[in-house]
């Protein structure tokens, strides 16, 4: 592997791109050809064969891929979390004991807890507020687009954008290139080295995630608000309810289930984020989170046991949400 990488590094970009382009075209063509041929043949065989063939063609590929690619790996990771670094011996709960006793990992767990509490709550509140404000605007399009825009940017891109905002100039006499430092000086405060000082740096990273997620919360909540019947709002108005009261007593209860969906979706997304931390601080200076530490343990330290244990802890965090979602879906289906 190292050898091929070394040889490849000497190739010109076009020498790399060309075979890759061929592979791309051949793969897409092969996929299309297979699908086409299967359909062609399947629609010609007799009806009895078709009755079982339809499961093999339509259902089996997805189910098999999910079994091999998601279910099996998840179970395997569970097992590996009870094994040593190279999965040759069982070590009982050692990896979990490690997770909950080593001070560095305790900081990782603490940070993850802060992320998963702060991001969903603040993004949802902000999204709710903006949705409410724009709900009554004449032309909310551009405002909403701009707030929604960070959703289209990668976490890595967002990391670069905000690293630039937080960039720090140690020499006080030189002009600042970071927006935060410049603003801080403008109000007469010597700027701190934003991304180095804990616990402020974790909050600054969280701000990036809020910046991204607020647009999502706003769009979803805004759509739910549009579904609140006008009669209800008008009735509340005729009853003399003020803006604020109407919002709390009428709008909020009517969009409650949407708000919960938004909160849980954001929470799950936040648990899995590792790109922001990795890009902006590399998990240093007490900013690390589980998702990033899991990556470091597994692919830098090559400690599959500890990496797997961290992944399982992530799963345990989302498990209640999965259970809740499935219950909701069940209920909805029976109502139908």
């Amino acid at each position: 592997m190292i050898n091929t990488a070394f040889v490849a590094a000497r190739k010109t970009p076009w020498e790399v791109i060309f075979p890759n382009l061929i592979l791309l075209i051949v793969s897409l063509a092969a996929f299309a050809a297979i699908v086409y041929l299967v359909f062609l043949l399947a629609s010609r065989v007799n009806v009895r064969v078709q009755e079982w063939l339809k499961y093999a063609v339509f259902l089996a590929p997805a189910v098999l891929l999910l079994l091999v690619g998601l279910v099996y790996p998840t179970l395997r990771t569970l097992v590996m979390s009870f094994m040593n670094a190279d999965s040759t011996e069982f070590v009982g709960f050692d990896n979990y004991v490690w997770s909950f006793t080593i001070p560095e990992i305790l900081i990782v767990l603490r940070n993850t807890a802060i992320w998963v509490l702060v991001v969903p709550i603040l993004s949802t509140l902000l999204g709710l507020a903006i949705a409410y404000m724009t709900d009554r605007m004449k032309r909310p399009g551009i405002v909403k687009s701009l707030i929604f825009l960070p959703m289209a940017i990668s976490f890595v891109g967002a990391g670069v954008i905000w690293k630039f905002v937080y960039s720090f100039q140690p020499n006080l006499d030189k002009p600042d290139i970071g927006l935060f430092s410049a603003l801080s000086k403008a109000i007469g405060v010597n700027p701190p080295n934003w991304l180095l000082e804990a616990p402020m740096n974790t909050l600054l990273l969280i701000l990036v995630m809020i910046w991204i997620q607020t647009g999502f919360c706003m769009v979803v909540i805004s759509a739910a608000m549009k579904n609140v019947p006008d009669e209800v709002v008008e009735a509340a108005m005729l009853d003399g309810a003020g803006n604020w009261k109407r919002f709390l007593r009428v709008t909020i209860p009517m969009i409650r289930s949407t708000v919960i969906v938004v909160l849980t979706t954001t929470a799950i997304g936040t648990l899995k984020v590792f790109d922001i931390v990795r890009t902006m601080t590399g998990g240093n200076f007490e900013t690390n989170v589980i998702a990033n530490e899991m990556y470091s343990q597994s692919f830098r330290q090559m400690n599959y046991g500890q990496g797997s244990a961290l992944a399982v802890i992530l799963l345990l965090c989302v498990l209640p949400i999965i259970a809740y979602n499935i219950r909701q879906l069940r209920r909805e289906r029976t109502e139908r």
Partner: protein
Amino acid sequence: MAINKKAKDIFASPVASAIAVIVAVLWTIPTFGLLVSSIRPEQDINQSGWWTFFTNPTFTLDNYTQVLFQGSTTNPPLFQFFFNSFALTIPAVVFPITLALFAAYALAWFNFRGKDTIFFIIFGLQVVPLQLTLIPLLQLFSKGLVIGGVTLIPDLGITGTFIPIWIAHTIFGLPLAVFLLHNFLSQIPRELIEAGRVDGANWFTLFSKIVLPLSVPAIASFSIFQFLWVWNDLLVGLTFGGGVKQVAPMTVRIAEMVGSRGSGWELLTAGAFVSMIVPLIVFFALQRYFVRGLLAGSVKG
């Protein structure tokens, strides 16, 4: 509708609108700062804030030409990664949507035992963190699967090509795709399907003649979703690319540039913007479909 408008006019408050506009401006400033910086000469970026551009405008495209086309033997130019991002993304959108549409069709219209159970399991799999699958899945790609001496999946020798990344993205995209497309397909009127059956259409022609044409809007929505997801992904590209530059997407390269001391802000700002330009175009051109997909995924009707 008229009443609706009237009610809104009464509620419309200039203060709320003003706050919303201010928030929107605040939200845009960081991205805008990056864009402005990317077109300033290296010296200016590193010696003065981007806001001074407005009092002392200096303009160059050097940063872009440098980051896109100048590389070294160890660090290829960004346009190679730009190609990689496309080559990664297209199949990683086509494969899962095709397979998910098949599965959604089966789950929505075939009658068989265990159908609901399969659907609920797929729905639950949506939120399983990718992190849980990384190590075993990587080992599957590099060593195959052998249980009790029986080779179930051989070592395919595909590590270091696009194929593991395509397959990984296909797998990870499937649960949400199946769920969304199932919701859509199950709303096709029963009469339409039954009429097709009565006319003697088999399940395969029924799919290609009736179901597929009807699902185009749903496919469009989910494609945009998956496109942005794959294009912006770092984790899958990083782990399943085998650490090889020939197949690494732009996100991996940009993340690497941030980490290395050699790349100054002039290259980083331009590079980051190059990596954002395609999602931004997709976003502005197809925002409506994107929002529709998003809503289908999170709001129940």
